[in-house]
């Protein structure tokens, strides 16, 4: 991009001024006349039968206006359709907004109360009488899968709710040709991205429609849920500012949207429900605890011929997200490697823990962890350098566009250079020298270098392809819209089809529009946040799947160029010039080479004509200056739909990055300090470099915090022990390193501006980078790092275990 474009520059943030002055607009900031406040009664048991729920006493409390019990939910609503996250579910199991006859995790919603104040609603909760019959809880996949385990879903006949596999190439052949088989058992724990704003809903039912303000990342989920559950099809979903999403606000939030909406219908008054922190920790959704048994077939020079993986996922107490952590591994199944033979077998095991939900990367951090841990293990077993083993297996720079054996097409990249630059930036040789010197004094310094891809832009057909028996077609490819309008005063207003959770969509879209129309970004503003009645939305209108860069950017670009064409049509007529002779600068259309008459016309003048003066319009010109464009990826094929070998595009763009971490481990306490964290990242064309930096910093910090110990801990009785952010162990400014970024963009040949994704990115390789560095630090003790998190306690145990041998 040249310097005369706004794309490529860190133009001033459009969103920041309102947030730094406290004028953001979040759901909890909204007030409607006669609004009630709702609270939810939640299960104190991990596993229990509900014998009865009695709300009469609570209903007598002054100020209480409504109570909804499981019987009401069953009578007044319908169950959710299973949806694509439950792909592979073999028995139809109805799931309602609340528990009905059984609770399956601590915090599962049982009843909802609305009162004139939040305090009174909370008081009323204590008066609802629930008779539970406690059942033995199943709190680990091992216990859940045993033959004698209590069944969480009797309908399934087993707690192993799904089993299946994908396989590409000749895996058995690869293992027969191997010089060596390298084996490892790996585990990733339960965590979350803990958005700072918990779930929030405000529902209002009027004779015309049901309106819900909800901080959902995927408004289509809320829209469908209310239609399905309540049978209301005049639904309006409004998403104001959202205080962080990261995947948490896609799925389980629909339960609460339905309960709040039901309460609004029942009471005839607006109802607001705001989740509190502990509720979010216990029931807002977790990432999946995943265990991998990995076998790699390798040649003695480090070439990897094939991989076999058994992935056991603890999906918690719901079947509604049965396979998302499995299917998302298809997105980065081969990471950055040219390996041709791979078998991934999956088992989804239900347990009495919080259901699992999408979470920054969903499954992809696990897949990257498998690859990067096994690369280190291969290097150790073959006595090779770990970076060299990776280099031997990377997809070459001359192989792009590269199709992976499962059908993903990596448009562009240069993985060797990313690794080289990461080594230079972290000063690898110097770190090794310091490490050797430090070891003489007992210092435990370690360095880990890993590489990963960041897939972006979802193909809606992915899960359908893996489970062809699924009766519900979730869609294919993607569709997303945008509207751009020239106002009568010459300013520009646009509407996006999707919500934002803090990724600077308004800033970025303004830059694209400014370039396309020839105006300054200051003259461009967003009309408002997502509103299903006004936003042009489709299956890709979701703040998830790294969709924005592909679908929204394409839609905004398309709409702005369509509007430019209409502006030029009108201007050419007014100026008596050819359209091709026009240029636009700073909101003024100039007709080059026109000698007589007017040589230019401003956007404001065009606006006055387009909205008010038919006499100055060319014959047949449609009044107004507005354009809508729905974008689908023009290169969605081949493999948008699966072929007979099960190959399908999971996502459409592939950013990539090398991460290098330097850590020091305190031998006495097991505490890991991250001394340096270096990233070299290819996110394609950078539209706003500071925005991309922010996405990389944030996602890296999350992955590092996950590796260092943030996470959920359950007791054997299925009670969650980490109910607050402090117990949960979220990193602060003290534990988070000063992350360093170098951009090495290789534009994507297939996207609108050469852009690739940047949102989930650095959360994918960072857990592996920390694991690699910690293992390297502890290598004098012979310690192997197999399981996350590397909390001080875990690391201390690893050190103790090694010393006692």
């Amino acid at each position, binding site marked *: 991009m040249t310097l005369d474009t706004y794309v490529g520059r860190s133009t001033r943030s459009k969103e920041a001024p309102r947030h730094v002055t406290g004028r953001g607009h979040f759901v909890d900031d909204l007030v409607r006349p006669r609004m009630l406040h709702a609270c939810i009664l939640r299960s104190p048991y991990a596993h229990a039968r509900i014998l009865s729920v009695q709300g009469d006493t609570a209903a007598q409390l002054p100020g209480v206006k409504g109570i909804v019990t499981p019987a009401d939910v069953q009578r007044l609503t319908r169950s959710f359709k299973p949806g694509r996250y439950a792909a592979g579910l073999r028995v139809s199991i109805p799931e309602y907004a609340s528990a009905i006859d059984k609770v399956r995790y601590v915090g599962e919603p049982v009843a909802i109360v609305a009162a004139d104040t939040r305090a009174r609603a909370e008081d009323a909760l204590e008066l609802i009488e629930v008779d539970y019959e406690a059942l033995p809880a199943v709190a680990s996949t091992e216990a859940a899968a045993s033959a004698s385990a209590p069944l969480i879903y009797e309908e399934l006949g087993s707690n192993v709710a799904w089993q299946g596999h994908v396989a590409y190439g000749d895996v058995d052949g690869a293992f027969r040709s191997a010089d060596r088989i390298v084996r490892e058992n790996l585990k990733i724990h339960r965590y979350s991205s803990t958005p700072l704003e918990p779930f929030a809903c405000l529902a209002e039912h009027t004779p015309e429609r049901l309106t819900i303000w909800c901080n959902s990342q995927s408004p289509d989920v809320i829209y469908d849920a209310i239609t399905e559950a309540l049978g209301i099809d005049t639904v309006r979903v409004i998403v104001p500012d959202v205080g962080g999403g990261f995947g948490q606000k896609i799925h389980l939030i629909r339960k609460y949207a339905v309960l709040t909406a039901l309460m609004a219908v029942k009471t005839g008054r607006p109802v607001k429900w705001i989740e509190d922190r502990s509720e979010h920790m216990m029931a807002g959704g977790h990432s999946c605890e995943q265990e991998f048994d990995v076998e790699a077939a390798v040649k003695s020079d480090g070439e990897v011929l094939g991989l076999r993986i058994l992935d056991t996922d603890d999906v918690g107490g719901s079947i509604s997200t049965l396979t998302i952590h499995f299917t998302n591994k298809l997105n980065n199944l081969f990471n950055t490697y040219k390996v041709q033979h791979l078998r991934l077998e999956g088992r989804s095991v239900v347990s009495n823990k919080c259901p699992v939900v999408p979470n920054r990367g969903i499954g992809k951090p696990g897949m990257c962890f498998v690859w990067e841990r096994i690369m280190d293990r291969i290097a150790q077993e073959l006595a090779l350098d770990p970076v060299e083993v990776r280099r031997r297996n990377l997809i070459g720079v001359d192989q792009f566009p590269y199709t992976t054996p499962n059908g993903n097409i990596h448009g562009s990249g240069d993985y060797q250079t990313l690794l080289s630059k990461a080594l230079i930036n972290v000063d690898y040789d110097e770190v090794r020298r310091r490490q050797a010197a430090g070891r003489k004094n007992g210092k435990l310094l370690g360095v880990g270098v890993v590489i990963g891809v960041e897939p972006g832009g979802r193909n809606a057909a992915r899960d359908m392809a893996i489970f062809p028996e699924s009766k519900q077609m979730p869609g294919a490819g993607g569709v997303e819209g945008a509207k751009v309008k020239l106002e009568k005063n010459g300013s520009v207003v646009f509407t996006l089809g999707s919500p934002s959770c803090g990724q600077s969509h308004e800033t970025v879209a303004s830059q694209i529009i400014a370039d396309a129309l020839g105006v300054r970004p200051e003259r461009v503003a967003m009309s408002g946040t997502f509103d299903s009645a006004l936003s042009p939305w489709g299956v890709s209108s979701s703040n998830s799947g790294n969709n924005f860069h592909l679908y929204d950017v394409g839609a905004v670009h398309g709409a702005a160029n369509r509007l430019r064409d209409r502006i030029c049509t009108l201007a050419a007529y007014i100026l008596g010039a050819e359209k091709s002779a026009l240029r636009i600068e700073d909101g003024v259309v100039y007709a080059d080479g026109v000698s007589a008459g007017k040589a230019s016309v401003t956007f404001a003048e065009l606006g006055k004509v387009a909205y008010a003066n038919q006499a100055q319009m060319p014959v047949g010109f449609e009044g107004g200056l507005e354009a809508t464009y729905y974008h689908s990826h023009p290169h969605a094929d081949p493999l948008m739909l699966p072929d007979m070998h099960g190959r399908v595009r999971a996502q459409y763009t592939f950013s990539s990055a090398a991460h290098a971490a330097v850590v020091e481990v305190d031998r006495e306490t097991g505490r890991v300090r991250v001394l340096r964290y270096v990233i070299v990242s290819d996110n394609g064309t950078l539209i706003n470099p500071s925005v991309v930096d922010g996405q990389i910093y944030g996602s*890296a*910090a999350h992955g590092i915090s996950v590796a260092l110990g943030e996470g959920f801990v359950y007791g054997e009785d299925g009670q969650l022990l980490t109910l607050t952010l402090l117990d949960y162990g979220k990193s602060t400014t003290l534990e988070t390193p000063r992350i360093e970024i170098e951009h090495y963009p290789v534009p994507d040949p297939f996207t609108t501006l050469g852009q690739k994704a940047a949102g989930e990115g650095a959360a994918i390789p960072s857990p592996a980078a920390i694991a690699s560095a910690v293992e390297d630090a502890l290598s004098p003790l012979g310690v192997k790092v197999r399981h996350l998190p590397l909390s001080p306690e875990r690391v201390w145990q690893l050190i103790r275990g090694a010393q006692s041998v």
Partner: protein
Amino acid sequence: MKHAVTLTVNGESCEGEVEPRTLLVHFLREQLGLTGTHVGCVVGECGACSVLVDGALVKSCLMLAVQTHERDVTTIEGLAKDGALHPVQEAFVNGFALQCGFCTPGFVMAAHALLARNPDPTEEEIRHDLSSNLCMCTGYVQIVEAVKHAAERRRQ
């Protein structure tokens, strides 16, 4: 039983009636409409509700509204003067020191309180001080840089 409170908020005198259990953050948000002060945890861990009481940084979920009787409270809405952003606010905007914006008012108040005490903090001091607040989006790098820039600008 309710208690009458009289206090100064953002330079203006105001009165209210609060229950003994009413938290300062709820009083500010619900009775005074100052919704820039956010609730992220309500147990003093996240700092999104940070305000100044008599110039000292306070998590307003850990203080009862009755405790602010005859005291001086400054919220995020009180920093900008005559439409001009405070140097800390300007530095956060220029430095992309926020994403979703939910933690931002708390961080701005914390940074403002830090610079009032220590006009020239080192990175280590900034990181130590701001560990009172949590941000789930930014990884803190751009926040710390923004505080450095705000300090520079304040000194000029």
